[in-house]
């Protein structure tokens, strides 16, 4: 692998930057692998990387029906935080934040992780109570989170409107300083490059169309648009398409797929120092290093696979943004788009074995799995390699819905992103 460094950049500069090679190979699939990952988003590519790096499984492949990171990885608003309410969630999401902190070094690839702080606004008495409860619960779990008055919130984020004559005035905020953003594509590309270097075959434009099982019920092969590939282990990391893929093995899941939209403005000079989220009025905003305001909405109301969503949903979010940040009222939006997010009833993910031997699933991340990319990938790889979960993902089973052990971040109300 061609290492990135200041020296290498200088050296290539002498040659007009013409000496850079493709960052990963584009192999044809082999007839068989020791394990196959379905889905070339950050989670799937990361799982392949950790399987090769930490578990010595190098005869493996990632199958992606489109292009790397073309799913939700490349469509999300990149908010990273770990201040979830329940112990199980704090464990999983904070595991991820810790991995983010060392990821650029680990991959020799700048994922542009920026701990600029994530501030979640409270607009009602109920919000205030819920967020304070989160602050206390997080501290008990060793996860940083602090309560800010409206004035302190404004000091942290000067464009914020804290006047009391708004429809939803700002009554305070919860701030996680270790939270922030990262460059979405870089995460997929960084994992792909590092996995490829360890021998992983990354195969784009290869859609899985069927899963074959042997007489004992265990998986034995995947049918793809590039032919049959035999494998004793399959890890599914297909986000919004998980129900479709697991349906190929006859497994039903507690999932529904919804469009989630985002938009970006024209690029402007740095004006916005942190990430601000408002779950109550569905507005999520930060500024990218290119200068665009990156704005996220709430999900559309009906299930869909269209990657579009209704215009009135983005409009609703922009109305909230304009009220919270009046300075942005005359900004022009450049693009908007949707991704398909797989939502569980308790808004917590599933990273687990399935009832089918050799079939593992990582799904249900819904509106908020980008932040968990390294942690999901790491624990999925562990689960596949050892055929049993890591203690961190052990609670995130499918069976929790049968056994009543929900991890109900939905009811805990800090749901989105």
């Amino acid at each position, binding site marked *: 692998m061609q290492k990135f460094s200041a020296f290498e950049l200088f050296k290539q500069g002498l040659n007009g930057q013409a000496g850079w090679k493709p960052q990963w190979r584009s192999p044809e699939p082999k007839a068989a692998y020791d394990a196959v990952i379905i889905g070339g988003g950050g989670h799937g590519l990361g799982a392949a990387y950790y399987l090769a790096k930490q578990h010595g499984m190098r005869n493996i492949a990632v199958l992606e029906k489109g292009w790397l990171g073309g799913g939700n990885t490349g469509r999300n608003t990149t908010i990273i935080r770990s201040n979830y309410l329940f112990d199980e969630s704090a464990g999983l999401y904070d595991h991820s934040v810790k991995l983010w902190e060392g990821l650029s070094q680990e991959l020799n690839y700048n994922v542009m992780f920026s701990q600029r702080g994530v501030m979640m606004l409270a607009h009602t008495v109920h919000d205030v109570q819920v967020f304070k409860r989160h602050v206390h619960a997080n501290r008990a779990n060793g996860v940083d989170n602090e309560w800010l008055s409206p004035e302190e919130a404004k000091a942290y984020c000067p464009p914020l409107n804290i006047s009391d004559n708004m429809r939803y005035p700002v009554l305070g905020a919860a701030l996680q300083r270790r939270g922030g953003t990262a460059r979405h594509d870089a995460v997929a590309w960084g994992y792909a490059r590092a996995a490829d270097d360890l021998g992983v075959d990354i195969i784009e434009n290869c859609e899985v169309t069927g899963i074959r099982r042997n007489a004992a019920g265990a998986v034995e092969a995947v049918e793809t648009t590039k032919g049959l590939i035999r494998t004793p282990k399959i890890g599914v990391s297909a986000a919004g398409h998980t129900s*479709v893929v697991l349906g190929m093995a006859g497994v039903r899941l507690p*999932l529904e797929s919804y469009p989630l939209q985002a938009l970006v403005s024209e690029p402007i000079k740095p004006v916005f120092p942190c990430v601000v989220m408002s779950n109550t009025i569905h507005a999520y905003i930060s500024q990218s290093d290119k200068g665009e305001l990156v704005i996220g909405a709430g999900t559309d*109301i009906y299930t869909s696979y*269209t990657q*579009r969503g*209704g215009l*009135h949903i983005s409009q609703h979010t922009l109305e909230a943004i304009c009220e919270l940040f009046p300075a942005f009222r005359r900004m022009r939006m450049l693009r908007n788009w949707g991704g398909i997010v797989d939502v569980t*009833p308790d808004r917590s993910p599933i990273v687990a074995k399935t009832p089918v031997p050799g079939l593992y699933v990582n799904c249900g991340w819904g509106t908020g799995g980008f932040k968990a990319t390294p942690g999901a990938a790491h624990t999925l790889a562990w689960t596949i390699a050892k055929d049993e979960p890591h203690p961190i993902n052990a609670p995130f089973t499918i069976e929790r819905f*049968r056994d009543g052990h929900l991890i109900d971040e939905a009811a805990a109300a800090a749901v989105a992103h």
Partner: protein
Amino acid sequence: MLLITCPHCGPRPELEFVHGGEAHIARPTQPEALNAEEWTEYLYMRANPKGLHAERWRHLHGCARFFNALRDTTTDQFVVTYKTGEARPDLKGPAA
């Protein structure tokens, strides 16, 4: 925004409606007879198809009544809407 045909009121803009999730999931008539697997199936498991989806809608800001629809989740096109209590129309969906 979609135009949705309420079987009682006719075509109205999406904003008047709320989505009610998968249709034809009957409430158990003998709840005490269900085991844990059957409860899980009833409460949580969903078809979530890529293609034709039978689903409930409610015309909240109109007649306020529930009805059912067959919608193609790959295009969002409503193929047909029908009244609650009627059987799912026997239509073949586009290949999923």
